[in-house]
């Protein structure tokens, strides 16, 4: 659930605009706090982890329904400051490839950010509780909890947007009244069947309930897949290169020389 697939021009302006404002503030905060050389050294890492998230998002496990996000992995490896930047970068690229709306980049950034930051914090907490030997368990639980929380955030967002009903009137975005229009076909069968104004008085709660039901029934399967993948990946990294996980994201990485240099022991 790392981003909302809501197109441009559906959410009310105040909502997506405040998404942009909050996201911009956080990005500004993160980048002013990270002016040091040790952060600059990590810029390629931000780029490459963001690309990894993008690549994994675009390789679907079950076509259309599920793709993995690796947001928790990204959060754990990047730490909070860099994760904020990474979330924004991921959403900009997605939007420019037509994958999501441009106006909702702000909100989507906040969603991805929330996932990365929560994932990072929960992973660290669970590792502290369970110990370093149980990285898999810690990352699995952290992922499920993170996704459950961010899915709830998403439902809350949709509820706040009011796109599902009468409150849309004040935003004007999907005013049922605006949507009724007269066309040359409006008297015919087509008009009545497809383009009639429909049940104008749909209660707001119905749409939201339907949305929430869909998200909460389809969601957990995705959470589980994501948790298994995250656990496997972080378990692997913990085994092969533990310093990446335990020493904090800004610790200098071990320099692995390409090619033939590590043959002598």
């Amino acid at each position, binding site marked *: 659930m790392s981003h909302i697939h809501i*197109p441009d021009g559906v959410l009310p302006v105040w909502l997506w605009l405040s998404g942009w404002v909050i996201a911009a503030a956080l990005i500004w905060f993160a980048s002013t706090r990270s002016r040091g050389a040790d952060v600059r050294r990590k810029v390629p890492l931000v780029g*490459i982890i963001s690309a990894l998230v993008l690549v994994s998002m675009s390789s679907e496990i079950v076509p259309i329904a599920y793709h993995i996000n690796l947001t928790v992995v990204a959060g754990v490896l990047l730490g909070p400051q860099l994760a904020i930047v990474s979330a924004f970068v991921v959403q900009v690229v997605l939007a420019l490839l*037509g994958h999501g709306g441009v106006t909702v980049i702000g909100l989507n950034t906040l969603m991805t950010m929330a996932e990365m930051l929560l994932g990072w914090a929960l992973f660290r907490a669970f590792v502290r509780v369970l110990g370093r030997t149980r990285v898999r368990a810690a990352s699995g639980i952290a992922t499920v909890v993170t996704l459950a929380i961010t899915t709830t955030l998403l439902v809350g967002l949709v509820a706040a947007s009011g796109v599902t009903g009468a409150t849309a009137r004040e935003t004007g975005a999907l005013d049922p009244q605006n949507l009724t229009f007269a066309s040359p076909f409006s008297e015919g069968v087509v008009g009545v069947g497809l383009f009639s104004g429909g049940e*104008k008085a*749909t209660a707001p709660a119905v749409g939201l309930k339907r949305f929430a039901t869909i998200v909460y029934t389809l969601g957990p399967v995705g959470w589980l897949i994501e948790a298994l*993948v995250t656990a496997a990946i972080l378990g692997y990294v913990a085994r092969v290169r533990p310093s990446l996980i335990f020493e904090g994201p800004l610790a200098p*990485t071990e320099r692995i020389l390409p090619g033939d240099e590590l043959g002598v022991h």
Partner: protein
Amino acid sequence: MDVAVLDRSAVSGRSHLHLAAPRAKLLAFALLLASIVVTTNLFVVLALLLVLLALVAAERLPARSMLPLAAYPAIFAAVFAFASAPDALAAALIVAKAVTAALAAVTLMFTTPYPQVFAAVQRVTPGLVGDALLMTYRAIFILADKLADLTRAIRLRAGIAGTHPVRSAKATTRALGGLLLYSVDLAQREYDVLVLRGYSGRLKVAEHPSRSPITDRMLVAGALALLGVATVWRIYWIGLIDYSWMLPALALLGLGATFLFRGRKR
């Protein structure tokens, strides 16, 4: 997501849109998005979509690669619309808006090399963000290649699909773990190369000048006109609603004319 095709088109395409200044294209893109946000009329959105399609056709852009990308968000929009839209009309509007905005974005990316687009973002964001954005884009290619190599290796050594889904899933996940480690090492090497080649905290992108100022002006003027139409229809919708059908009809005529003209030129 075939990024390689996109990049090739953006860099080596020779249409008018390729000649236009990136700034003009970004401005036109923003105006078009504004029209999509403003409008609440399905016919207006359809007209915008048809105009864009006519543009793609007239410029002979690689529609075969562009349209699937643009249609992709329709799937999610449809899910969202099904879940939350009060009626079929609203649902159709949601899907149409998604596809139109996506087509606009895809048209921009297929006609403008990515650093030119990202340079615009870079100008208004902190250095860290712009640089990360530029590096992300490049890394997508490298990682997509690596992932392809990895899955190829797995296929050769046992095959992914088939009889043991759990074992296959495990293998795929391990491959992702390997890809991650590779990525971390790659990041280090990439930074080394950047420093060796003169990087000191800000990637510099030279802005492409316009090679066709007329196209720039026409693009912006056209986008402004569309925004105007969308706004007028939004404000005076009660009076204009009976004539809404004329917009997509006009756009459709334009699209037809484009094809006719294209055919004759050949």
